């Protein structure tokens, strides 16, 4: 068997006073797929960064195939045959598959003899369970194919222990199944061992042999997947029963009322000036959550930016409560339009400004927060901040701290506090929980449902199908800038949605 086994003995790592990882002992058997589960901040990334040498561990030891090894730098991990596939692609889109593979070597020769390299690559590809044409440009590969290229890269580099960091977050359900199936096949053939970071239970039960759960930097449990249940695993992860069982009641949508948000024939370009949104029309009623599903990069970003006022549409129009809407401040205030964009620090906050100032962004020019119509009332801003910080449990509870020094979950809480405290008629939401821990996710989902039940029309763009199925009343699928499919969430079928997200239907006709 060529696959490596890997074991850590009481691995630990501190950042300042913060103990990110404490006494974690993990064993990955050779030729198996091992899942590493945990909330955000549980220490999964810290552990694997230590294993690949990007941020070496401070204590504990690492055994590779039962021999103790020091891993102080990525090169040392690579020499042992340990490699990692990152959540976001690390390929050069301008180059071909062959060039990407050759360039990924730790010791590329001074002069590359392409003829010989191509021969070697062809021989290598023939031995692989899946192939990619070495001459294809990477920019032309689909997301699933890029992920395959990342895996081929690891195999080409003779890695025998491969770490996958949330490998399926950019793939359709079908692509995800295919890629993970391939990894499991390679592992069971004894070619590699796989350590996979994930937060999707489905992937654990369908593809992993063993599973280890981390919580707050410590190991909670480890066992064979066959010997456990999803309930037991989520109990380990959360330390208690998952909170989203407390379902908020949802009254049915009143189909007779006029939509509060209507988009007609919108066309928008992306940053390169290529049409990214093609004549999209949609409408949202008060008290309804309309979800837009799609693989990232199919026009959602541009659509959101137009609705948020961050991008100019080429044509088409937006109506809010029947009136044309252009994303101006007066209109937002009058029609009560609010939004929760993705990556809040990049889209909805000013990183260098304080939490209090960020909380005041919607209202700083309104009578409540300024005197005589022009003098900013700092005392009122601080008072408002104190109340909102308490209600939304922002930590640390310090209104004067620059918001960029807060963790992702707390930044999102600040934005929630700002956008959802006042009355909301229309809410535009984009990937609201991306990269957040379970507790924050549950809270955000609950707040969205509450806003809906209070009568807000919510447009929810998300790359997470589970989130849409849980929250939305209707789901639209966007593919290549078109709305290609539409269904009620109650009648939605995951496979059907996945097919439309991948554009299978569009290609067929």
């Amino acid at each position, binding site marked *: 068997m060529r696959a490596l086994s890997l074991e850590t003995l009481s691995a630990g790592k501190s950042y300042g006073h913060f103990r990110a990882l404490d006494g974690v002992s993990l064993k990955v058997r050779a030729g198996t797929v091992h899942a590493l589960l945990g909330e955000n901040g549980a220490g999964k990334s810290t552990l694997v960064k230590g294993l690949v040498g990007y941020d070496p561990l401070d204590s504990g030891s690492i055994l590779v195939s039962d021999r103790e090894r020091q891993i102080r730098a990525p090169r040392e991990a690579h020499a042992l045959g340990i490699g990692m596939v990152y959540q976001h692609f690390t390929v050069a889109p301008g180059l071909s598959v062959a060039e990407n593979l050759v360039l990924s070597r730790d010791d590329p020769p001074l002069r590359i003899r392409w003829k010989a390299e191509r021969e070697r690559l062809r021989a290598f590809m023939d031995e692989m369970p899946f192939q990619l044409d070495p001459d294809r440009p990477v920019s032309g590969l689909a997301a699933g194919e890029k992920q395959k290229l990342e895996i081929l890269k690891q195999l080409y580099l003779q890695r025998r222990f491969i770490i996958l960091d949330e490998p399926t977050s950019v793939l359709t359900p079908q692509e995800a199944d295919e890629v993970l199936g391939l990894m499991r096949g390679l592992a069971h053939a004894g070619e590699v061992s796989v350590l996979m970071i994930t937060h999707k239970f489905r992937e654990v039960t369908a593809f992993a042999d063993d599973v280890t759960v981390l919580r707050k930097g410590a190991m909670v449990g480890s066992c064979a997947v066959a010997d456990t249940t999803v309930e037991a695993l989520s109990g380990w992860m959360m330390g208690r029963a998952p909170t989203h069982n407390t379902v908020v009641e949802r009254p049915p949508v009143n189909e007779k009322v006029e939509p509060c948000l209507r988009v007609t024939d919108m066309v928008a370009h992306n940053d390169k000036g290529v049409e990214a949104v093609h004549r999209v029309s949609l409408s949202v009623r008060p008290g309804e959550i309309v979800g837009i599903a799609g693989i990232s990069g199919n026009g959602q970003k541009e659509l959101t930016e137009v609705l948020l006022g961050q991008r100019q549409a080429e044509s088409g129009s937006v109506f809010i409560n029947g009136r044309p809407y252009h994303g101006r401040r007066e209109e937002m205030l009058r029609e009560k339009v609010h939004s929760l964009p993705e990556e809040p620090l*990049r889209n909805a906050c000013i990183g260098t400004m304080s939490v209090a100032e960020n909380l005041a962004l919607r209202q700083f020019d309104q009578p409540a927060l300024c005197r005589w119509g022009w003098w*900013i009332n700092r005392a009122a801003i601080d008072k408002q901040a104190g109340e909102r910080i308490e209600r939304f449990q922002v930590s640390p509870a310090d209104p*004067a701290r620059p918001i960029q020094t807060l963790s992702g979950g707390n930044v999102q809480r600040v934005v929630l506090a700002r956008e959802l405290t006042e009355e909301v008629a229309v809410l535009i939401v984009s990937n609201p929980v991306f990269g957040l821990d379970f507790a924050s996710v549950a809270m955000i989902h609950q707040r969205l449902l509450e806003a809906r039940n209070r009568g807000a029309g919510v447009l929810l763009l998300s790359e997470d199908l589970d989130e849409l199925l849980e929250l939305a009343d209707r789901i639209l699928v966007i593919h290549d800038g078109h709305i290609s499919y539409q269904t009620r969430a109650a009648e939605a079928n995951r496979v059907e949605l996945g097919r439309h997200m991948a554009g299978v239907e569009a290609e067929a006709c």
Partner: protein
Amino acid sequence: MSIRIPPVAARGLALGLPALPTVLAVATTVLLFSVFLWAREIPVLEAGALIYQGAFGSTFSWENTLLRAAPLMLTALCVALPARAGLIIIGGEGALVLGGLAAAVTPLWLPALPASLMWVAMAAAAMAMGGFWIGLSGWMRQRRGVNETIGSLLLSYIALAVFRHLVEGPLRDPASLNKPSTAPLPDAYSVGVISDTFYVHWGLVAGVVVCALAHVLVRHSVSGFAFSIVGGNVRAARMIGLPVNRLVLVTCVLGGAAAGLAGMFEVAAVQGSANAALIAGYGTSGILVAFAARHNPLAIIVCAILLGGVEASGSLLQRRLGLPDATTLILEGVLFVNLLAWEALNGRVLHWRIHWRERGRTPAEGVVQHG
């Protein structure tokens, strides 16, 4: 760390920290300039004493210093105001020169007026001209994607060329023979000095007042808050519906107006007409003042006086030590490079500030802190 520091001292440290990069930059500049003098075998201490004496050593040197500081305050605002909205404008020289020209021709084209009204008209013309010129850079950036730093620099060269062309051609006073100028300002309209014992013109008062107003604008007004949102994160500014293009344009126009006003005082209080002596580098030195003050309008007053002092001491260095006129320029250049280099410290300063601020808290008001 277990050093015991009283909360008050910690709070003081947190407050003073933003000035740290500037203080360090001044320190390294003094060091490097000393090395430069030493390499030229010039007594370093004596040169230092002379700089002090030339800048602040006597009433005369104070007057000389403040005379130079007045336009620097206004041209520094031409950098600092657009900087609030995230722009780096370096074309203040052009706005000053064109503003001066506009002020110089206003009395020629208007009927006779009481002096105070005429001054208002001249100032308005100068500010409109300067505001237009810098506003052009802002407009080109927002509408045409032209980098505002390069755009304003190139526009400044165009402004200087236009100025020379007009002063030496269509607007030249035939009586000005070897120094082409516009027609001299009637004596009634020239701006006088503050008092006979303190020989500095009213431009200094204007500079201080405008800086104070700018402080209120950027620190305390709704518009100032909007500027800093745009400067901090354009995407967030658009998301909350702010008219980004208009706000950027307003900061540019205000900055340009300040530089134009500097030109008006140079014409009305110093030169008496628009001529090539107006191109004295105040616009360029204003950039240095704004960066040293970290775009804080009140700090600009202090930094303008310090830099005015350095420039004022140039002639003393020349007379006593035989140093060329350009010596103060070298000093300014070294200072500018050091200011930019120490900017890199800003990220650290932020962390230290939080650290000291938290230490400055008494335990009762302590912050809840977890993971």
